């Protein structure tokens, strides 16, 4: 006689599935570790503190946005405008600070500008029913153009009274670790919990799995979609602020083409472009792998022209891996 508890306890079935699902993250992580090991054997430069610091910082920017992108992709959408939200946010904070405004107020304005892009995307996608690809392609163009108008297409490298604070926040370090890495860690942990344990997270995956079912279940799908695109834009805005401080100067080509790297990171980390799957940790590991590849090409003296070939291969391998998993199901 099986009791109710037996039934529940025997339902361990999907815990191995969950493990299988995490395999992609696992394998990508292994790939990154192997690349690191190989590099440290082949060149002394890789394990130098300076280089590791740079790798850690560089990948953090992409990874922060990849977490936002994962939310969008898991809900069945796509956001091509993140690179432009980065430059708009960076430009707003630089122009505001250059005009004498303090850091925090300027950062608020920068995030606000990015959130407006997200709101615009979200409303057109959710309420007007327009395809995410087209809407965000439009705002990719429009937001960068706004950044150019705002700065008159000039480089900004003086940030007013809080100049040093901005450079410290984006480019400084504490306990030997670059600040963007702290931001990334907090975001990754919080979002891992949010994806799994909140209604927002659960409903986001439901929309990605079967939007019709989500609507019928009474989930406020439209509002949720708007919030998802706003979240993605916010991560881009956050990265824009950090990048402004890291570079110490902002030009209007900041973040150009970044959307592709970010999408690649999310997909390599297990986000499914068909919707319904993705996780924050995967996005981080995906971004790490891409940065390690980039770094290794430079250190090994291989032409950076090869970079796209490696990243492309990883994207295709990641998707092939996903196909293979689905076939065995």
């Amino acid at each position, binding site marked *: 006689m099986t009791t109710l508890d037996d039934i*529940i306890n025997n339902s361990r079935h999907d815990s191995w599935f969950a493990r299988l699902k995490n395999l992609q993250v696992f394998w990508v992580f292994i790939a990154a570790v192997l690349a690191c090991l190989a590099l440290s054997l082949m060149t002394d430069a890789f394990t130098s503190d300076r280089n590791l610091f740079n790798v850690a910082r560089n990948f953090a920017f992409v990874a922060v946005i990849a977490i936002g992108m994962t939310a969008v992709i898991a809900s069945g959408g796509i956001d091509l405008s993140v690179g432009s939200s980065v430059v708009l946010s960076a430009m707003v904070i630089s122009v505001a600070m250059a005009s004498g405004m303090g850091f925090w107020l300027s950062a608020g304005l920068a995030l606000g500008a990015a959130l407006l892009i997200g709101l615009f995307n979200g409303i057109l996608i959710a309420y007007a029913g327009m395809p995410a690809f087209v809407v965000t392609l439009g705002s990719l163009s429009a937001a960068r153009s706004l950044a150019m108008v705002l700065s008159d297409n000039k480089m900004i490298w003086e940030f007013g009274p809080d100049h040093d604070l901005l450079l410290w926040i984006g480019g400084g370090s504490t306990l030997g670790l670059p600040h963007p890495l702290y931001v990334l860690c907090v975001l990754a942990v919080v979002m891992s919990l949010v994806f799994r344990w909140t209604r927002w997270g659960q409903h986001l995956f439901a929309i990605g799995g079967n939007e019709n079912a989500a609507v019928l279940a*009474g989930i406020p799908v439209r509002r949720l979609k708007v919030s998802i695109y706003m979240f993605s834009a916010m991560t881009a805005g956050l990265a824009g602020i950090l990048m402004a401080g890291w570079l110490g100067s902002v030009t209007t080509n900041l973040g150009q083409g970044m959307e592709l790297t970010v999408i690649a990171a999310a997909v390599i980390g297990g986000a499914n472009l068909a919707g319904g799957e993705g996780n924050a940790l995967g996005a981080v590991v995906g971004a790490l792998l891409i940065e390690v590849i980039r770094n290794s090409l430079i250190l090994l003296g291989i032409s950076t022209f090869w970079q796209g070939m490696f990243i492309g291969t990883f994207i295709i391998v990641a998707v092939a891996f996903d196909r293979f998993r689905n076939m065995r199901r």
Partner: protein
Amino acid sequence: MSRLVFSGISKNFGAIQALSDVSLSIEPGEVLGLMGDNGAGKSTLAKIIAGNFRPSTGEISIDGISVVFHKPIDAQREGVAMVYQDLALADNLSAASNVFLGREPLRRFGPIRYIDYKRMNTVSADLFKQLKSETRPRQLVRRMSGGQRQAVAIARTLLSEPKIVMMDEPTAAISVRQVAEVLDLIRRLRDRGISVILISHRMPDIFSVSDNIAVLRRGRLVCRKPVGASSPEEVTGLITGAIDAA
């Protein structure tokens, strides 16, 4: 008093007259088999009760009280639950998550509120047990058989203690063994005093589980009688139009 009464329901989509002047009633604990050819208007009728469409004319009342549904949620509040033809489940989520979709129980931890998965799993396991279905709460819907998916969809409706459950072709595209499972599920609903409207193209299913049978032809109700007083031959004739009305 009848549980659900339609009077003079018509529905047109532009020039298409999907339903014309349908009047029908159903009692508590009754299983009504609704049949008709493709495009006869069965799904349209179900969607009107479920609040997906509003009738062009006509009235619906539940337990003697006239109701107007603007949205599916209005119908759910009045105790009408619909198991959709396509089941409307999120494949990428677990059975329990689907049962509770949009109604996830929350727990508090200080100011933080998080989903109570433990409760979701226990309650769903209990519902599956009541339905005598071997569905595990944590299993992903993607990996389930057609019969198990039906159990998830039905458990989902049970959560809201419905008075009326509508099932649109629950036995289409599943194996013979699973059909028997689904018919058992329907009997369990009936035993709880729930009225069930079963839409199906499968004559044996309708005859084995229904108390009464209703036939729609081109949007008109052409028959409504106890199954015992009818026969598969008669119903076939009514569906095709070989028999005018009964």
